[in-house]
């Protein structure tokens, strides 16, 4: 791979600086893949435990009526994070599943922060600026409360 990269760089007529950008980026890709795997495995494990707990403690069992109550669209209040936290503290299935969902949603954010650190360590100013802009825009989007 590094041979291909250097060939390409020669074709570009680009200056071949001491730090091979191809290799450094390849290293970052491995780090990001590991970050994502950690997030995926953690959330998958927690969500699966939540579903199993639900079947064991009876909160996910019952008949058609029980299902209708479980997926009732007017239950939003009981799915807020404060309610889920209460459920989690008592080992409830809904709390455990919500914790897993939060881990899942946090994973791409951790990925962007890992990229930020990676580009900073590589001294890649352009991508440090681009990645910082993405982080700032995500923060802005959450602050505005808009979906994007």
């Amino acid at each position: 791979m590094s041979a291909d990269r250097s060939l390409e760089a020669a074709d570009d007529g680009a200056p071949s600086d001491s730090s091979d950008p191809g290799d450094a980026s390849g290293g970052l890709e491995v780090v990001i893949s590991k970050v994502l795997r950690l997030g995926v495995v953690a959330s998958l494990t927690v969500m699966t435990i939540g579903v199993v707990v639900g079947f064991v403690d009876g909160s996910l069992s019952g008949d058609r009526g029980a299902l209708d109550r479980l997926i009732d669209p007017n239950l939003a209040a009981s799915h807020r994070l404060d309610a889920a936290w209460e459920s989690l503290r008592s080992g409830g299935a809904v709390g455990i599943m919500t914790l897993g969902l939060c881990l899942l949603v946090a994973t791409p954010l951790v990925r962007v922060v890992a990229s930020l650190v990676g580009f900073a360590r590589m001294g890649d100013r352009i991508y440090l600026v681009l990645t910082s802009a993405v982080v700032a825009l995500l923060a802005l989007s959450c602050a505005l409360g808009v979906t994007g």
Partner: protein
Amino acid sequence: MNPLVFVLCALALSALGGLVGSLVGLGGGIVVVPGLTLLLGVDIKVAIAASMIAVIATSSGSAVAYTRDRMSNLRVAMFLEVSTVCGGICGALLVGIANPSLLNGFFAAVLLIAAATMMRRRHDASAGPPSALADRLELHGSYPDARTGREHPYRVSRPAVGFAIMYFAGVASGMLGIGGGVFKVPAMDLAMRLPIKVSTATSNLMIGVTGTAAALIYLLRGDVNPVVAAPVAIGVLGGANLGARLMPRVHDGVLRRLFVVVMVLTAVQMAAKI
């Protein structure tokens, strides 16, 4: 249907959504939303919130393999995320102003035109014009092809055009509340001339970030019902992981045709809302 059957059906349905989504670079909402509402009787708002979770699950589940195997282009993703997140915010702010029927009609038409163009390009592997900006940003790369066992180098064209289109892809996802991969892949394929596999894998990496802002808000508002979303996420993660393993062995032409089918289906879904 009792809760056990419901959870098993949601798992199976979402696994299919994750498999398709990871191959074509979208969140799988096109399978998950109609499946949950039409087959399992879930309310549309609950289904859409679960589908935002599915977008993130598809993205992370497939990107584990795609970034490790260098199938997705990290630099292209970071560069384009700036404009697509910008577009997403503008789109969400504009939602109240524009006429929804007009919007759905407009984006459905755009999708059909892009689908026809992508289908025509299936025998055209020609590179676009060279770009000094792409050189400066070191966007070029290469990806492994498991079928031939060779490394395929590629060069990125027209990054500024891709950047601009990606802004409108972001506007579309913000306005319509979708992951937007269906607009991201054509931008990379048609404008930037990335190989189809790199386009879909890079789109997969990107939709996780665009979806996260939306998913956070859904979670905070209590719109995410964990009884629906957790089985969906588990199923999608499994399907996406399988899709990402299959992708290197899938023929480019098959992938392109599958993507065009998904584009047309999405256009039909949008047209139905006019």
